[in-house]
C-alpha cells in the first residue's frame, strides 16, 4: 500500500545516516487504506480483529489474502472509529516505510526506503543508523520484511492448494445501512466450507498436517467482523462522522 508518489531508495548508511522515522502512534498514515495483504503466519492474529478475504491481483489475476479495513475504496472504519490502535497491525503495514526490492538479478532483495513517505525526516522518531551502524529499529524492520517475504511464499503454496481443490468462491457483500444507503462490495472471495469437507481424505490429511485447516477456519470465522464493521459504520453515519 505504497502511496502513489513513492520514491524508493536502497538503504545506505552514508546517504541515509541522519534519517529518522516518526512514530505514527495514531496511524494517520494509513487512514485511507481499505485493505492490506496478510500472510499465513499472522492469520490467527489478524482474524481476531479483521475480516479476512481473498482478492485478485489486478496485474496477474492471482489471489492474495487480505484483511479488510473498510467497506468501500479508501475507507478505513478502524481508523475512523479510533479502534485501530487497539488492533494488531498486519506485517505489511508494520514494515512501512521499508520495502524489499530486486535491483539486480541473482543478488537477492535489497532493503529500500520510501523517502517520499511523510514519516521519513531527520528530526524525530527511530533512527536508521546509530553512528553509522544499523540501529536495532532498522534490524527489526528488516526482520519484519524477511518474515513478510517468507509469508508471501507460504501464501502462494496455501492458495495453490485452495485453487487446486476449487475451494475459493466469490462473495458479494450487499449492504444496506440504517440510513437507507446501499453498498455493494465485489471482488472479494472466500472459502467454501462445504467443498472443503468434500476434499478427499488423503488431501484432508495433508491439509491438516500443513496447518491449512486451522488457517481456513480462522479465515471463515473472521468473516463475523463484517457485521461488526457494518454496525460501526451505521453508528458513524448516525453521528455523521463519515
Amino acid at each position, binding site marked *: 500500500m505504497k502511496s502513489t508518489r513513492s520514491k524508493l531508495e536502497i538503504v545506505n548508511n552514508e546517504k541515509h545516516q541522519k534519517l529518522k522515522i516518526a512514530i505514527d502512534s495514531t496511524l494517520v498514515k494509513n487512514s485511507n487504506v481499505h485493505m492490506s495483504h496478510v500472510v499465513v503466519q499472522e492469520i490467527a492474529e489478524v482474524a481476531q480483529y479483521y475480516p479476512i478475504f481473498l482478492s*485478485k*491481483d*489486478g*496485474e*496477474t*489475476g*492471482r*489471489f492474495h489474502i487480505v484483511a479488510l479495513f473498510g467497506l468501500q475504496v479508501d475507507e478505513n472504519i478502524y481508523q475512523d472509529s479510533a479502534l485501530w490502535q487497539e488492533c494488531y497491525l498486519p506485517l505489511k503495514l508494520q514494515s512501512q516505510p521499508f520495502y524489499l526490492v530486486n535491483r539486480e538479478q541473482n543478488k537477492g532483495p535489497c532493503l529500500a526506503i520510501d523517502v517520499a513517505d511523510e514519516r521519513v525526516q531527520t528530526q524525530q522518531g527511530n533512527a536508521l543508523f546509530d553512528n553509522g551502524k544499523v540501529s536495532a529499529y532498522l534490524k527489526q524492520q528488516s526482520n519484519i520484511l524477511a518474515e513478510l517475504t517468507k509469508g508471501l511464499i507460504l501464501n502462494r503454496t496455501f492458495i495453490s492448494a485452495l*485453487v487446486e481443490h*476449487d475451494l*475459493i*468462491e*466469490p462473495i458479494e457483500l450487499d449492504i444496506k445501512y440504517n440510513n437507507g444507503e446501499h453498498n455493494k462490495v465485489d*471482488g472479494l*472471495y472466500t472459502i467454501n466450507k462445504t467443498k472443503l469437507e468434500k476434499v478427499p481424505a488423503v488431501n484432508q490429511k495433508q491439509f491438516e498436517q500443513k496447518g491449512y485447516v486451522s488457517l481456513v477456519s480462522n479465515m471463515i470465522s473472521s468473516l463475523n467482523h463484517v457485521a461488526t464493521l457494518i454496525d460501526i459504520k451505521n453508528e458513524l453515519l448516525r453521528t455523521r462522522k463519515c
Partner: protein
Amino acid sequence: MSKAIKHVVIVGGGSAGWITAGSISAKHNSKSKHGIKVTLIESPDVNAIGVGEGTWPTMRSTLKKMGVSETDFMRECDVSFKQGSKFVKWKTDKETDFYYHPLVPPQGYFDIDLFKHWQKNDHGKSFSDAVCYQEQLCEQGLAPKLISSPEYAGVANYAYHLDAGKFANFLKKHCVDKLGVHYISDHVEAVNNACLDKLSGDIVSVTTKNHGDICGDLFVDCTGFSALLIDKHYKVPFICKKDILFIDTALAVHIPYENDDDAIASHTISTAQKSGWIWDIGLPSRRGVGHVYSSRHCSQKQAEQALKSYLKESIGERSEQVEFRKIDINPGFREKFWLNNCVAVGMAAGFLEPLEASALIMIELAATTISEQLPANRSTMEIVAKQYNERFSYNWDRIIDFLKLHYIASKRDDSAFWRDNKNPQSIPESLQERIELWRHRSPTEYDFSRKREVFSAASYQYVLYGMDFKFTHDNTVIDEAEQQMAQRLFTENKKITERYLNALPSNRELITKVAEFGFSKV
C-alpha cells in the same frame, strides 16, 4: 423390444469428430461403465482440412460443458479473443468504408428499437458505435476481459480465433484422458449393413484395416468432404446452393508476425474484393489470411493478385513470395443429415463460405443437439431424426439467408460479382419476404421466433444498418417517454464505452498474461 442406444461410434476426427465426442461423452458420462460408450475412429492417412478458425461465443459453453479449462485451451490452441467482425469495403469500395458486427447486442435490445432514434440523429456515429460499446474496443485492439476475470466470463461478450489443427489435437487428448472416449487410429474400409430385420438399412458396424469390425448403435459421420457414411454409403443427395452463394474457392495462407509484440486484432477483418472477400484472423503467433471468391467471376491468377496486394499493405514486398493453399468450397448441405442410425456432422453435413464463421458453430449445434436429444432406443431414434432433420435444414437455410444479406445490402456494383448477387433470382424467397418487411421496420425477434435461432435479429440489424439499408418511417409518432429512453441508452452506451476503454488491456497484453498466469476458475 427396441434396442437401447449404448454405443456411439464417430468416424473421423478433426474439429467435428472431437467436439461431437466431447459433447456426448461429457453429457453421458462415458468414463463410467454405466455411461454411453463413445468410440472415435480416425484415419492416420487423412489430414484434417483445418478450416474454421473463428468461433462464436457459444464455444465458451461448449468447452466448459466438456470440463475444459479456458487457460489450457488458450495456451495450447494458439487462441486469441474475437469480439465480432469488421467489414471493410463491403458497403462501397472506398478505402475508408467499414462497419462492425459486434457480439454484444444493441443497448436495450429487448425493449426498444434504437435504429429509428439513431436514424433521426446519428451524432456522427455509425449505428453499431452509437448502440454498442464493442466497436470501440475492437478499433482500439482491446481484450474483452481482464486477467482477474474468471475463466469463460467476459467484461464484453467474446468468442475465439484458434488454430484448428491444434484445437483438434487438444480436444483429442482431453476426450481420451478425461472423458473416457475410446480412440482407434485406423482406416475405415467398409460400412456394413444389417439387412434381415425390419430396420434394414441400419449400419451394424464399420470395418477397419487393423482393428476388425467396430459395432455400434449410432454412427456419426465426421469424415468431412469424403462423407463416407452419409454420401458414399447412404447416397443422401447434397443440395448445392451455389445459385445463391457464388463463392466456391478459397486461397489461404499463414502470415507470421514481424515482431513478437505486434498487435493482435480482437475481431475478424473481412475486406470485400471485386469477386469475393478476404478474411484476416489474428492468432497469437500468426495471422491466417485468405481470399474466397467466385471462380465464375474471377480467375485464380486474379484472386492471387488481389490477395497479394492486400498482404502488401501489411508485409510489403514479402507478399510476392507467399504461397497459397487452394481449397474448394461447394456451398450447400445434405437433403437429410440423420438417416437410419447415422448422423452427419461438420463438412459431411454441409459447408459454406467462412463469412460469419458458420463452420464451428454448426458443429457445436449438431453435437449439442445429438448429445441432448440422444434417443434412448432405436425406435425413438426415428422421431429424433425427423426433428433433427427439420431443425437443421431450417438452420442451414437461415445461415444462407444471413450470408446472402451481406451481398444484397451492399451498395457495390463495381463488378459482375456484386451485380449478379443482387439478381432477385439468386435471393431466397424467405429472405426477399423479410427484406420487404424491413423496408418499413427493423428486424425483430418476431422474424426469428424459434427457441434456438442461429442468428438473432440483432445480427441482421448490425449488417443492414452497417450498410445504410433504406428504411422508410411509418408515420406513427414516437412518444416522449420512448425518446427519453433512447437518449438515456445512447448516453449510457457512451459512458460504458469510456469506462471499458480505460479499464481493458490490449488483446496482445492479456493473451501474454494468460500464457504467464492463466485465468482462475472463479
